[in-house]
């Protein structure tokens, strides 16, 4: 019997996350974050690992980098035809991988550096980000056997079924240098574990790694699908990615405001705030009530220029941050941070709903 795929089955209820960023925009090699996942090995079960890396394609930094899984050569041909209708493809190549016994049954994994065709943008009367987002949703919902798992500029996601430390070796991450990295080890509890279902989930330059199990999935999904998103995988992280994209890119909220929507404080906490803040929090919680995410989560959200760490308002998952020189570290466990930097300091456990936002200095990447 064929194993059911992600999106076809839901199995009810852990995970490991880690991240590092250089505020100075200095290059960090991918093996640093790969090593960080080792002491958290038992938080995953080998059914998914992945990384998001920012600043890794400086030579193509004005082009969208699509990372795509294909289950067959013919699917790739079909997908390339679709891409050619909408983009100038500057480069298309296999993503370099390493054959290792721990990672098997890999799909065909390609990357394309593309620029949207000006004529198409003019015809559809949308900006290039919206154009790319629509293309990604279209491929992932309509083109069976093709899955775009990364679509931002000068960034890329790398994910697979396996333990994260093996996934890092598989994708030869030591050959990449980025100013910021996030990582995830998966313990899938709701879905069977498929390459596309591993974290990070990504749209444009936004990426999310998530440890938790949100109980508001269906309420959030129903709301967000009214705005053109399609949740294809039944995993809660996908919906978080779309919610953040909707609030940041389309509603133009600040990151702090996004945090106050998805991890809204309790009414009792809101009522104890000064008048002005109370008014703002009440507004956000009322207008975007369908985007409140309940249930346990700790996430690291990455974008072109920074990282945000956030826990659910009850802080039902662990997360700790630390610093050393220009670097900031975030992880589910202090041991992971100590692996990256034994002498890290300023260890801090953010409160539930308290975002930790780190930005790279202007002009540094």
């Amino acid at each position, binding site marked *: 019997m064929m194993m059911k795929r992600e999106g076809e089955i839901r199995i009810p209820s852990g995970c490991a996350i880690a991240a590092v960023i250089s505020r100075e925009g200095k290059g960090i090699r991918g093996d640093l974050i790969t090593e960080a996942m080792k*002491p*958290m*090995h*038992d938080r995953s079960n080998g059914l998914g690992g992945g990384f998001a890396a920012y600043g890794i394609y400086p030579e193509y930094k004005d082009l969208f980098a699509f990372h795509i899984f294909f289950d067959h050569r013919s699917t790739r041909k079909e997908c390339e035809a679709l891409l050619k209708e909408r983009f100038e493809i500057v480069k298309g190549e296999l993503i370099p991988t390493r054959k290792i016994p721990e990672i098997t049954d890999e799909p065909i994994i390609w990357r394309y550096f593309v620029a949207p065709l000006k004529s198409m943008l003019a015809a559809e009367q949308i900006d290039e980000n919206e154009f790319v987002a629509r293309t990604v949703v279209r491929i992932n919902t309509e083109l069976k056997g093709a899955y775009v798992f990364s679509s931002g500029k000068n960034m890329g996601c790398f994910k697979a079924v396996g333990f994260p430390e093996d996934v890092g070796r598989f994708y030869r991450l030591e050959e990449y240098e980025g100013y910021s990295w996030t990582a995830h080890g998966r313990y899938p509890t709701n879905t069977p574990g498929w390459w596309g279902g591993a974290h990070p989930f990504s749209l444009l330059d936004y990426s999310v790694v998530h440890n938790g199990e949100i109980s508001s999935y269906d309420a959030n999904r129903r709301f967000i699908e009214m705005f053109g998103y399609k949740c294809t995988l039944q995993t809660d992280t996908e919906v978080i990615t779309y919610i953040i994209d909707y609030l940041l890119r389309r509603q133009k909220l600040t990151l702090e405001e996004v945090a106050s929507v998805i991890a809204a404080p*309790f009414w*009792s*906490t809101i009522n*104890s705030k000064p008048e002005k803040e109370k008014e703002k929090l009440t507004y956000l919680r009322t207008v975007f009530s369908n985007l409140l995410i309940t249930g346990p989560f700790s996430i690291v959200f990455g974008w072109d220029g920074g990282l945000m760490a956030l826990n659910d308002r*009850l*802080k039902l998952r*662990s997360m*700790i941050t630390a610093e050393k020189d220009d670097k900031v570290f975030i992880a589910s*466990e*202090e*041991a*992971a941070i*100590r*692996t990256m930097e034994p002498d890290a300091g300023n*260890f801090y*456990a953010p*409160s*539930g709903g308290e975002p930790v936002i780190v930005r790279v200095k202007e002009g540094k990447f």
Partner: protein
Amino acid sequence: MNINATGLDFMDLNEALRQSRGNCTITNCLGQRFLAAGISDKTVTVSGIPGNAMGAYLNGAKIEVMGNAQDAVGDTMNDGTIIIHGNVGDAVGYAMRGGHIYVKGNAGYRAGIHMKAYKEKQPALVIGGKAGSFLGEYQAGGTIIVLGLVDNDRPIVGNFPSTGMHGGKMFLRSDCKDIKFPGQVHTHRADKKELAEIEHYLRHFCTYFDCDLDELMRSPFTVAMPDSNNPYRQMYVPN
């Protein structure tokens, strides 16, 4: 005996610990879980960062960690002493039913939840710094003490302390003006008799972490206790 934890997974490390005789020092610990779980007869000193659930079900041993510890330290411990020369993660002393935990720094969320006591089994959790939200949620017995000995503008404990508390006592070294307690909990300033009850815990704290007892006692303590011995009297049937 010394065990170098480098490259050992949690099973190997715990097995090496069980096989060791007498006191034991673990160096280079890096996230190995369940350290010293259930152990009754040793003194274990840990350097590095122990993994989650250190000292779970501890049954009389003494563990001293020279730096920070992660989540779920002393989960359901029965007896013994845990001393942390740093901060601890979430849920320290979860459902502990005996023994003592001393933390020099801060504790995360849900410290001491479900703590309970029976006759000579009187657990105590002493936190030198500040504590996160849900401190002592559903506390049914034992003593939780928070000293607030860190200099920042956070309150001594986060939101919703002692929610569902129905036994035991919580001592916060603060006037607690900015703290909201739930309705079923009664708070008052600790009197001399109550301070005498916790003095031996504070004395130990000062010995372990080298601070001055008189200085500690100069600030007021607020005591939180359940309002009644039977807070659920009217909840189901009158009894």
